[in-house]
């Protein structure tokens, strides 16, 4: 049970909408493990990838996939300035945090993610959204991640979480 408790998982999943899009709010818990924190502080970048898929529920045939997204977030520690830069979807301009806690929060909080434009949905339709977060394999110096056949790092993958919604 304790082992399950420390497994990373998606929580607080909320689906809402603004005028144009269906928005997703979610949080990854237990995403940062102690050894991973040490690795980040040692300068190893860590990347979370949010996988998001939206399906339309259909009665007699299989459900129709409306859209699929991937959002990457990478945290990188600058040891000279003692700041944490969080890059969103390979954006070259990072958000810089002076403390690790804020940076971690920025990494695990997925707020207002555009799931699907409302135009893609049909009024009165039933839909559901699948979401999971996968931690990419650590990028090690000298591409050593390709050499380490036998050493497992902190890479993980949460289970798919399903959230139903109607339009």
């Amino acid at each position: 049970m304790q082992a399950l408790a420390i497994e990373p998982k998606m929580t607080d999943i909320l689906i809402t909408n603004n005028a144009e899009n269906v928005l997703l709010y979610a949080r990854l818990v237990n995403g940062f493990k102690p050894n991973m924190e040490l690795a980040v502080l040692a300068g190893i970048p860590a990347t979370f990838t949010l996988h998001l898929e939206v399906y339309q529920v259909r009665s007699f045939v299989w459900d129709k996939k409306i859209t699929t997204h991937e959002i990457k977030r990478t945290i990188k520690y600058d040891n000279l300035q003692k700041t944490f830069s969080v890059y969103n979807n390979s954006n070259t301009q990072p958000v810089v945090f002076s403390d690790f806690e804020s940076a971690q929060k920025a990494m695990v909080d997925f707020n207002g993610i555009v799931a699907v434009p409302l135009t893609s949905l049909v009024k009165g339709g039933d839909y559901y959204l699948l979401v999971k977060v996968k931690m990419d394999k650590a990028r090690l110096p000298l591409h050593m991640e390709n050499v380490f056949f036998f050493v497992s790092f902190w890479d993980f993958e949460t289970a798919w979480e399903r959230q139903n919604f109607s339009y």
Partner: protein
Amino acid sequence: MEKKRKNNIDEKELRKRRRERIIMVVVGVLAITFTLIASNFFNKNDLPLSTNIFVYGLTSINVILIILLLFLIIRNVVKLFYEHRHGIIGSKLRTKLVATFVGLSLVPTILLFLFAINFLSYSIEFWFNIKIGDALNRSLEVAQVYYQQMEEQAKFNARQISADITKNRLYERERMEYLKNFIGQRQNNYKVGMVETYFDFQKDKIVFADAEHPDLVPVTLDPKMIEDIYSGKEKSTVQPTNIGDAVVGIVPVFSYAVPSEVIGRVSVSYVIPKGFVDKLRSIANASEQYGKIKFLKNPIKSNYIITLSIVTLVIIFLATWFGLTLAKGITDPIQDLVQATNRITQGDLDSHIDIEADDEIGLLVKSFNQMTKDLKKSKNSVEEANINLERRRKYMETVLRNVSAGVISVDKTGMITTINRAAERMFDIKSEKVLFQNYRDLMIPEHLSLVDEFLQEMKENNDNLLEKQLEVMLKDKALTVLLTITTIQDEEGNDSGTVVVFEDLTQLQKAERAAAWREVARRMAHEIKNPLTPVQLSAQRLQRKYGDKLGEEGSVFKECTQTIIDQVEVLKNLVNEFSRYARMPVTSPTLNDLNVVVAEVVLLFQDAHKDIVFEFKPAEGLPKFDLDAEQINRVMINLLDNAVAAINKKNGRIEITISYDEQHRKATVAVADDGAGVPSSYKRKVFEPYFSTKKFGTGLGLAIVSSIISDHHGQVSVADNNPTGTIVSFQLPVSEV
């Protein structure tokens, strides 16, 4: 046989190759399947699919190969262990070779492994030496402190400027000119770079450019920072620019009237030149790299150890495999050689080893094959010689068997080694009963002493050849033999045994005797018969002339002359008999039936002697053949006469049996009586003239029989009847018509 064996081997080899091909295909399919599965399900990084397939392909092939290698080696080692336990040929050498190879490879490999592990551990520890880490950390700290100090410096100067602005209320619009002079003065005094002021009532901020870096772009603050400043906090930030890093210190400007009210902000920038920033960055990078690698120290170490262990295992496996292969290469030909030798030992000289090799083993195999070939050639020659010898031996045996003289050979121990058919017949013995037995155990004492005498004589004469004529009685047969004893000596003069040749002279002697007796009879008849008639006539004349004149004494005279006349008559008869014997007519054989000839005589005797039972058994299937019926008639009369005379009692029984040996084409007539019989010592003489056991016999009857039968090229013999009596029989050759 060899071809069949070869075919078996080929079939075995083909099956093995087919199996290997199947294994290879299965391994290949497994490798491809594993690669596809791995690349589909474990594609966790962003490498392209082709690279993934390549990497996983290599990995899976390696894993499968290692498993296969492990399997093959374990299989071979188990097989070797099994062979060693069951003592299969070549397994000992193979075990030794494999053990040597594994030992030879194991020691340096283990040593190298341990050394490598130690070296690696030492090197890794050395890389992460605490001094190096410390130095890097200190350098980083220096860099960090430098940045901090620059930030503090910027904030301090900004604070000073902010305080002066508040104190002198320079934020007021009408004092703007004074503010500009003041900041310019402070820029000069504090050697600060760019200074920016922003007051709430202003639309834009006022920028006082850095004299040294006029191109420096003003700082863009994020909302959170601005929010912090307006809450009274001092902030600093570092902004990278083209000319280096701009260290910016931002402080709030408070109102003179309400000191807690923030009415604006002042930021002071210092530029750290790019060259210096790069140096600091390289320090930071080095430290970061070090930190990363230090973090990976244990995984790297574990990975290296695992990799080294695998390489070591692979080397050991390869060494074992190589040892097994090499041992197989050496022991297989030896095994083949041993098997071929065993086959040769069992007589299979067609064994050939099919191994093509240029090394010494190949030479050995070639020599072995050549030796086998030579051996086969020699064997064939010996066999041919043996066949010739055997043929000669058989020829000699045939000659020996068919030779008329009896031949018996004994070895130096006295064991009978050869006995031919003539000897068997002569002595009425069976070779299988006497062969390989000592002659001393077989002979009766009388004959044995005779042999000893001869041997002694030879020894005394120092001669290896002795010829003797002997008359011996064997059972009921009298034989005259010419004995030739020859001692055999080998090339070195050693005694190798004795050969005894017996020549049966019985018939020859009989014929000679008969001829001699005929001559005697002829002369006697001639010499005696002539004076007999005058004697008889003279006696008759005397009887006639003086018989009546002598009166009473005349009866004596008459009696005497009559006796002379009678005895002369007897003598005349005797002489006539002798004369008849001497003047036996020449045999004139014509085609006759022996059964009929004999039957006629038997019938005559049956009529004459009613008190004797004559039993006649004619021969069945006896063909007519050339014989002189008159003479055979006479023979039968003599024989039956003798038989009747021998019975000398009432209710006697005479059996006349004719038998026919179709194979040897011989007819035998036997006349058996149940009379008194003939003593053994007389048997040899019964066929000689003037030998009779009868009171009034002339002794010529059996002599005439013998003579007639000899003329017919037959043989006469006499034997004892059982329980009493005599069997006189004659044998005639049945000539083909």
